[in-house]
């Protein structure tokens, strides 16, 4: 497959069943390198299960998928080395300082002492937190924690960063700042896979997919989707999809 090289994520008929219940029903999609790919769906639509299969935490029941060129069945260890992950909870140690958090996660990914020292400088500079690297993370405002968490997900320069509802509970201004960081990372060639249930955020993505009841019912750029569903906003697209399904 000559095209393989240009895709960061390829999924074909990816399925996860728990007994009789099909949580993820044969989803297929490709994500280009450097793309910002939005993964939308109501709670319980199967987003989290799908992500778990992609990041190597859960074995698919059927289907194929490669992440950064590595197979989700046999090469989960290689996948883990090449992805970053940030959850809704930000996953920071609040009783450690900024520098200590960076040092720990750098250590987890096997970075050398020198690489870690460079990362501390790089990250604190990018976040304009140079003077605060010895401050406990718990004392930081939410927006900064969020951006720090994103930087930590990329501490080992992964090919893909998975963001699982990264902007929960954050005000719109902070959210916009956060998206600026995402764009910056994408510009550096990092692929971004982001789940959200904020429809305004969906507009920021290059392409989005919408999951309903374990199936992927829509896939395309925000403009394409709005045209397809004759809707003025992503909100409307979403409402139409979910309603169309229950009728």
């Amino acid at each position, binding site marked *: 497959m000559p095209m393989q090289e240009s895709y960061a994520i390829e999924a074909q008929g990816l399925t996860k069943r728990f007994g009789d219940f099909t949580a993820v029903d044969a989803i297929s999609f490709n994500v280009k390198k450097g793309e910002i790919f939005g993964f939308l769906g109501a709670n319980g639509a199967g987003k989290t299960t799908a992500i778990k299969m992609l*990041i*190597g*935490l*859960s*074995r698919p029941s059927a289907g194929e998928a490669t992440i950064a060129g590595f197979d989700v069945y046999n090469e989960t*260890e290689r996948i*883990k*080395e090449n*992805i970053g*992950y*940030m*959850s*809704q*909870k*930000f*996953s*920071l*140690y*609040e*009783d*450690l300082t900024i520098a*200590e958090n960076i*040092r*720990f*996660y750098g*250590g*987890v*990914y*096997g970075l050398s002492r020198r690489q870690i020292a460079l990362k501390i400088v790089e990250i604190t500079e990018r976040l304009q937190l140079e003077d605060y690297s010895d401050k*406990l993370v718990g004392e930081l405002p939410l927006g900064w924690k969020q951006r720090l968490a994103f930087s930590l997900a990329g501490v080992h320069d992964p090919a893909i960063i998975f963001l699982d509802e990264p902007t929960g509970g954050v005000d719109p201004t902070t959210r916009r700042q956060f998206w600026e960081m995402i764009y910056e990372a994408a510009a550096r060639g990092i692929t971004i896979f982001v789940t959200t249930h904020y429809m305004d955020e969906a507009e920021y993505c290059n392409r989005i997919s919408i999951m309903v009841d374990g199936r992927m019912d829509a896939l395309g750029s925000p403009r394409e989707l709005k045209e397809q569903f004759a809707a003025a906003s992503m909100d409307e697209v979403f409402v139409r999809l979910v309603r169309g399904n229950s009728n």
Partner: protein
Amino acid sequence: MKIFWAFVRKEIYHILRDRRTLAILFGMPIALVLIFGYTVTNEFKDASVAIVNQANDELSQEFIEHLTSSGHFQLVALPQTRDELETTFRANQAKLGVVIPPSFSDDFYRQKAATIQLIADATEPNYATTLVNYANQMIRSFQQQKNQMSEQAPYSVAVQTRMYYNPQLEGAYNFVPGTVALILMLICAMMTSLTIAKEKELGTMDLLLVSPLPPMLIILGKVTPYAVLSFIDAIIVFVLGYFLFDVPVRGSVPLLLALCLLYLFVALALGLLISTKAANQQTAMMTSLFTLMLPTMLLSGFLFPIPSMPTILQYISKVIPAKYFIQIEQAVMLKAAGWEAVAFPTLVLTIMLVVLLAAAWKNFKVVKA
């Protein structure tokens, strides 16, 4: 190895920066030893006694003197009747009542069968039993004394009692081993389950699982600091026991410490098992308290003797790890027993360890999938 140390360093920061953790780690062992040391005791002094002396003669006076001369009993009232005696019980003035019948000296000298009634306030049953036992002992010695003085010695069986391994019946001999068992269980299991539950709560556990680290390394990195600290705690308790309460280690110290380590691993495995089930710190805390602390205190033979429990509780006590560890401690510390004497409890603990680790590992895998 480098990653392992990154973990240990991180965990040490967590411990040092959290006052609550520090207090539990180092405050609790010391507090427990001191509290148990000075409260859990079967010794008593100046127990208040009321005596109804219906005989009021020379012999009964002699007897009262004998009873109070020891210093353990203090005569607080001399009620006339049994009703008056009960009044002193109700007012909580006396804990033990002694009734000497009017015919006391006649019965004693002529019938050779005098009766003395002991009435105890059994609202605190252990205390009541202790007082009655002691009073019985004093009555026997009074009788012996009298018999020796009279010319015609009656046939009698003299009982000689010797309390082995703990001749002074020091309460500390019992509570120091018990406290070590409790502390290791609490700190090792509770802190382990708490620290892992905390990572789950914060979402940092997800991040670790997504990282290329082998799960085994994550677990080892997290539990090692707590294992080391609880081992230090155990040594602190032994040392406090030795210097403050004169509890000796008569057997081999290396053997004791090695088996301490085995028990510590059992506690760690229990903590891991709880943490795979508990989603947050509160659940982990409650589960630890109810499944670890209470059984360890109540069913291990630490506070209450196992043979006097109802059969069903005796069966339950068989799966309490602390029971076997306390047996080991008592054997090695007090009876100077060697390796062979503790082989059975050691085997049981080893089997428990294997089973618990397997269960924890299986659960961990399930959580991952």
